[in-house]
């Protein structure tokens, strides 16, 4: 057991169905979520994020592997005996109870005294700024308000871990931005471990202490946002998070070279000599540079206000995007068909195996 771990997932698999129609929703995933952190599970729809949350909450039992909460194996513990609460994607507020009764439900089930429940409900209402709505039914609230009530209801019993399954996906853009800040504030104020699920990479990057990137039932990479963004472990992660250019190169004497022999400024481990690798470089790390080692042709420039995106074509036909800061005049001074040389910011090129 790891000191300071709120949740440990040990080689957990979850298979739905049997025989030829079996779906392996989660494939031997191992993960440690630290106490008090804002952890995000990020991945495309259907990659197993909800399944992992349901295993932690106890709505499902792992087909193989273990779930530890606070160091104790809870793989077979029913959800009502785990100190974990969930904010459901659909909110799942009880329609026959008022906002206050919804928020107090967890504490009531825990058998807390009435006075304590009343205090906690009042505190939670204030925390999510819903004091005026205390006696309303959930149906009378807007989507954003229901969201806050769902949050307050899950936070009221002061769980060890709060699970949030794409809680913001039903909100419009403006409200979503507001709620992102709000969630981050609540997490900091309460100090509760948050496990947040999203398929929105920007949301993951801005809110999380750490991110786990998932694909097809596997956890591909776990790390801080900067780490995930700047040092993706494979092509999937690089592609899923932000925009990325991919180049194919062959390592010769420790230097990756494009098919026409042009060298790319990147370090390649000698053990990969002779191997073909994929290089990833972010558009903002590409420079138009008369001294640059690589020849390219401008295919198109697209003005985005602060940035101008410059679409380039290399000698081997590879397409590349350079994101350049627009000059004060707004005109970057490059025309389609123009021949240029490009280079990459030192240290910006990532070598990927996948």
């Amino acid at each position, binding site marked *: 057991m790891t000191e300071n771990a709120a949740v440990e997932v040990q080689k957990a698999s979850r298979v739905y169905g049997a025989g030829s129609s079996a779906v392996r929703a989660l494939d031997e995933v191992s993960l440690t979520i630290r106490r008090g952190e804002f952890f995000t599970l990020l991945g495309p729809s259907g990659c197993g994020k909800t399944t992992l949350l349901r295993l932690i909450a106890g709505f499902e039992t792992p087909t193989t592997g273990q779930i530890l909460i606070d160091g104790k194996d809870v793989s077979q513990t029913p959800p009502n005996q785990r100190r974990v609460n969930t904010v*459901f994607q659909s909110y*799942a507020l009880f329609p026959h109870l008022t906002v206050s009764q919804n928020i107090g439900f967890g504490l009531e089930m825990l058998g807390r005294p009435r006075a304590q429940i009343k205090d906690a409900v009042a505190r939670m209402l204030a925390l999510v700024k819903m004091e005026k709505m205390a006696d309303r039914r959930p149906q009378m609230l807007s989507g954003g308000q229901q969201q806050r009530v769902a949050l307050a209801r899950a936070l009221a019993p002061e769980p060890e871990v709060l699970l949030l399954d794409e809680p913001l996906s039903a909100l419009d853009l403006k409200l979503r931005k507001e709620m992102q800040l709000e969630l981050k504030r609540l997490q900091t104020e309460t100090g509760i471990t948050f496990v947040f699920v999203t398929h929105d990479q920007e949301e993951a990057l801005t809110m999380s202490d750490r991110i786990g990137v998932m694909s097809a039932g596997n956890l591909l990479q776990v790390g801080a946002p900067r780490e995930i963004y700047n040092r993706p472990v494979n092509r999937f992660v690089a592609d899923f998070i932000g925009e990325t250019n991919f180049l194919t190169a062959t390592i010769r004497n420790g230097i990756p070279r494009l098919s026409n022999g042009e060298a790319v400024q990147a370090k390649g481990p000698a053990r990969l000599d002779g191997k073909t690798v994929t290089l990833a470089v972010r558009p903002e790390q590409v420079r138009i540079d008369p001294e640059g080692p690589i020849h390219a042709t401008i295919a198109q420039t697209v003005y985005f206000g602060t940035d101008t995106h410059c679409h380039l074509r290399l000698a081997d036909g590879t397409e590349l995007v350079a994101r350049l800061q627009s000059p004060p005049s707004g005109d970057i001074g490059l025309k389609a068909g123009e021949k240029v040389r490009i280079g990459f910011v030192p240290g910006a090129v990532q070598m990927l195996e996948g």
Partner: protein
Amino acid sequence: MARRDFSVSALPGFGTIAVIAFVLLYAPIVTMVIYSFNDSESVALWGGFSTRWYAAAWENTQVQEATIRSLIIAVSAALIATTVATMAALGTTRRGKFKGQTIIYIMINQPLMVPEIVTAVALLIFFAAIKVATGIQGLGYLILAHSAFCVPFAYLPIRARLEGMDMTLETAAADLYASPWQTFRRITLPLLAPGIAAGAMLSFVISLDDVIITEFVKSAGQDTLPTYMLGQLRRAVTPEVNAISTALLVLTVLLLTAFFLLTRRRG
């Protein structure tokens, strides 16, 4: 401009047919209601307005006894049928698809499909055997028989309600530390209540109205209101039967209105 969607009501003759259907449905009922206030002894000749047949029925001890018996049977049957139907509905909807599900649906709804007379004969023979074997008499047989054929009527609205219920709510309750029993008591049951009430009312009305099965299963002196009325019609037809029918009609309409209000409002 109005949209010119296809509508049956725009077909020629639709209005006429609708009017005829309504007349056929309601003319006899209206006549019955009007003649229940007839002062004359005859059921066909109008002799002025009076409520004397209501008074007569109210004072008739046979009517009183039959009414009480009908109410006891209908209330008991509604309670039993609703309980059984609730459990059946929970069992058939609160889990994934399982083997034999269709068979179970068919079995639960069997009384809706088998001719009532067949059920009546079967019950008669079955209960006769039990009576001989145990020597037990009483209203229990009628209550059981009514419960049996009321189950599908109670089951349908309850199952509809359960199927429309968001199962995440129960998951959420478990997440908030509710035990399975607490989840049922605090979440499932209250949300199911309108369906259960609707099922109970429908069962009550169906039981109150039954003639065929009651006629076969009842022992001597166990007349319910409908079988009493049938017996009366075999002798002299008096406007008293009209009065009783009208009273039953009012009760039924009230209950069915409540039923529709309960089942219409969702969530």
